[in-house]
């Protein structure tokens, strides 16, 4: 199934300025909250003041008395989810796990959950009206601790959740929706063969993606039943699918336009405001705008799961891993989602090991429902696995990279779930890291270094692309994937490569759901691979058409016409790659440029355009490694990150600067999660830090320049060798930072984040222990 992977490129691999760059740095770019339309009114959501309660009644009468209040809504305006399943991008989603997140039904399960909404002629009026909505609650005991929630006698969040994956099927509901176990080989035999066994338990807190742009939308409906949505999202088609499902309105009535997006990281792969605004618009007959506050974003959108992972690894004296056992308990908030799957399946995918047992359970608590965050489900258990691997290497007196090289998976090795690896770049990543000057740079007293590697599976999924040629030979590329990480630049580069024309003559656009074929979300590290693949296919179709047109003009057969250097060449002059027109002319070859053919399109069969779509089955995994140097203030527990290097296999970096951006961004987010980021809930089950002041993502001055090394081991299944790059960078930072900090401080703190008070206590305990 291996295909011919191109390795020589003219445009791919260069670093042109992104086409959306000037608009973004000058403020012209329009984000979710930037659209205003004639007659627009403003929606405001009424949110639960309780972490767990029954909704007894909702009374809008006082709110409706305010002049200027034009519509109200609650879950009564939405269809009952029942057991309906909605096709998501990669997995099916049960409507009842996300419709109540849009608008609670009968019960609220976390503080800040939407219970009702109002729309009025100004934002202030809408906020005032929301305050006047009287909701009567019967408060129920809330349960925040995942261990407590997992107990059999715990108060239940749902009376219809039965643990899946248990035999015999349970007859009583519980707060554990999913249990999963995979195993291969014989785990007891593996530990029996080991000379050293290390077992530790690591805790990773619930954290938020921290995208800078809050969720926002404008919805316009008309008397013909048409529903236009403008919103900040990772997928306009996903918004169409999910909003249709939540509102019960036919998909065919929707047109969704994605605005520019100020970050998503997986957090904008669902809908929150859009179905509400649709209902408010239909009821009021007016366009409705809704914008979340930062407080709303933290309280009521989907963070990443908290998890506790116990890991036990056995090795022989000479450093061969004989057994890996993991046990994960993952806190997924109030409704079922499935980050546990990836966590269980792939937590130790970097290592060749015959005996693996991996077990995991999801737990529901009175916290917001978790959603995707870069490589969902993986960073939490990888902290545990990688920190233990570092500890083992240290105890065996082996270099941690050498230890990993000895155990690293390579082409032909089989994962614990039975799938063999194709060509992969883990060993090359490890070797590059070892050769990097950072790895051998001297450390001073009080400083520590950590390394960690991670694997992510990456997705393919469905994408479409359209290419239109203008009369002057300039080219428009249309796709349906919101550009988060520079994908427009990558699309243009890949099209330039196929068409042989300068990348600057190509204008890539992200268009609405009426204007291009279906595209799954920008997520799962799939856009460059899958949507890029559709662009390559469409460009190849266009080249074939251009050769056909030139052949017609010259009265030749298409086989006698080549396409090279951006022009059709009669075949007498084949053999020269990327020739220019003068060269061809001096050789006496006939040529027609794209502009020539565009000018004569009408006479040769009509406008030049090409469409391609596919379900990309050619995703390939990626591996990433981080090296972190940290210094600890022993009197305050403050950590300084001194130096940081990321190494990652990108397959082929279409636009290297934006691959580096993904690597650096993931590192920064992982450093934040390791050191300070966490959801802090108070006694009432309310989030105590719903803002960037006390939810501490790193600021620029907290960080050194993040160095990057791109490794390119081509994906054998992709025409240009592309692998996904967007998700795996979040997985290695936490264990790299935790190892570096613990080494610097002489501690073994396993409870993240390593915030100063916790670290200082650990330092004092360590000092007392040695005294």
């Amino acid at each position: 199934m291996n295909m011919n992977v191109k390795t020589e490129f003219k445009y791919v691999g260069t670093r042109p300025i992104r086409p959306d760059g000037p608009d973004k740095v000058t403020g012209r770019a329009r984000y979710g909250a930037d659209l205003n339309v004639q007659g627009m009114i403003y929606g405001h959501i009424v949110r639960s003041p309780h972490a767990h309660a029954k909704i007894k009644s909702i009374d809008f009468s006082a709110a409706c008395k305010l002049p200027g209040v034009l519509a109200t809504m609650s879950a009564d305006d939405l269809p009952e989810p029942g057991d309906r399943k909605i096709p998501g991008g990669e997995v099916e989603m049960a409507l009842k796990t996300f419709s109540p997140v849009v608008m609670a039904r009968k019960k609220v399960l976390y503080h800040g959950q939407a219970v009702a909404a109002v729309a009025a002629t100004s934002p202030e009026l809408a906020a005032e009206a929301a305050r006047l909505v009287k909701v009567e609650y019967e408060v129920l005991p809330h349960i925040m601790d995942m261990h407590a929630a997992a107990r059999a006698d715990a108060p239940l969040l749902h009376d219809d959740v039965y643990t899946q994956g248990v035999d015999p099927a349970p007859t009583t509901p519980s707060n554990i929706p999913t249990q999963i176990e995979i195993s291969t080989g014989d785990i007891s035999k593996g530990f029996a063969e080991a000379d050293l066994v290390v077992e530790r338990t690591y805790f990773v807190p619930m954290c938020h993606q921290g995208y800078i742009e809050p969720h926002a939308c404008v919805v316009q409906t008309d008397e013909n039943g048409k529903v236009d949505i403008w919103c900040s999202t990772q997928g306009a088609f996903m918004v169409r699918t999910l909003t249709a499902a939540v509102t019960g309105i036919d998909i065919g009535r929707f047109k969704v336009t994605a605005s520019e997006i100020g970050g998503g990281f997986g957090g904008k792969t669902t809908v929150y405001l859009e179905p509400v605004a649709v209902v408010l618009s239909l009821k009021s007959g007016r366009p409705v705008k809704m914008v979340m506050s930062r407080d709303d974003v933290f309280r009521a959108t989907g963070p990443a799961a908290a998890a506790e992972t116990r890991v036990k690894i056995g090795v022989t004296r000479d450093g061969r891993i004989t057994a890996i056992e993991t046990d994960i308990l993952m806190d997924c908030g109030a409704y079922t989602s499935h980050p546990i799957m990836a966590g269980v399946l792939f937590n130790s995918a970097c290592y060749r090991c015959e005996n693996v047992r991996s077990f995991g359970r999801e737990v529901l608590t009175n916290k917001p429902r978790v959603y995707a965050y870069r490589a969902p489900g993986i960073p939490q258990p990888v902290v545990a696995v990688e920190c233990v691997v570092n500890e083992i290497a240290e105890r065996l007196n082996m270099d941690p990279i050498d230890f990993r090289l000895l155990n690293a998976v390579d082409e032909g090795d089989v994962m614990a779930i039975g799938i063999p690896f194709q060509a992969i770049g883990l060993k090359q990543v490890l070797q590059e890291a070892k050769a990097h000057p950072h790895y051998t740079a001297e450390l001073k007293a009080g400083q520590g270094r950590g390394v960690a590697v991670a694997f992510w599976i990456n997705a393919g999924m469905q994408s479409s692309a359209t290419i239109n040629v203008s009369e002057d030979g300039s080219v428009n590329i249309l796709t349906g994937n919101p550009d988060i990480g520079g994908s427009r630049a990558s699309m243009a580069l890949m099209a330039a490569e196929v068409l042989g024309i300068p990348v600057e003559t190509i204008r890539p656009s992200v268009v609405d759901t009426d204007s291009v074929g279906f595209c799954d979300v920008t997520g799962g590290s799939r856009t460059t691979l899958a949507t890029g693949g559709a662009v390559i296919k469409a460009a190849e179709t266009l080249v074939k058409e251009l050769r056909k047109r030139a052949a017609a003009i010259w009265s030749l057969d298409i086989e006698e016409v080549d396409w090279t250097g951006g022009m059709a060449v009669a075949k007498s002059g084949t053999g020269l790659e990327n020739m220019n027109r003068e060269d061809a002319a001096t050789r006496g070859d006939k040529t027609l440029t794209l502009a020539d053919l565009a000018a004569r399109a009408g006479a040769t069969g009509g406008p030049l355009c090409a469409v391609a779509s596919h379900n990309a089955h050619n995703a390939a995994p990626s591996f990433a490694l981080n090296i972190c140097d940290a210094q600890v203030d022993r009197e305050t527990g403050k950590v300084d990150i001194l130096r940081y290097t990321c190494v990652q296999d990108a397959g082929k970096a279409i636009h290297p600067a934006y691959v580096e951006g993904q690597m650096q961004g993931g590192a920064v987010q992982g450093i934040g999660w390791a050191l300070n980021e966490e959801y802090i809930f108070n006694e009432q089950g309310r989030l105590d830090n719903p803002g960037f002041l006390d939810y501490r993502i790193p600021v620029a001055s907290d960080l050194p320049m993040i160095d990057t090394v791109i490794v390119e081991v081509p994906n054998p299944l992709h025409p240009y060798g592309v692998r996904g790059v967007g998700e795996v960078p979040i997985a290695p930072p936490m264990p790299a930072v935790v190892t570096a900090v613990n080494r610097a401080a002489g501690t073994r703190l396993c409870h993240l984040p390593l915030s100063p008070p916790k670290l200082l206590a650990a330092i004092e305990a360590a000092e007392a222990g040695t005294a």
Partner: protein
Amino acid sequence: MARVILSADMQRYTDGIREITVSAGKYRDLVTELLQRFPGMNEAIVAKHALAIDGIIIQTPLLETFGEDSELVFVARIAGG
């Protein structure tokens, strides 16, 4: 005969059998064969899985075909971000 590795979830319906061989050459025939062989299993359970054919994970394998020496692995679908 293609070799099939069943997922942990599927193994709950196979008395713990992890690996089988099948005569099918198409995904649809593979499903039929599985359901005949393991009456406890049903189509919905199979449909929850992606199928890896010789190392390539296919989320929607409905129309896929494979060879006699193919290695097939049923794997739970994973969502990315």
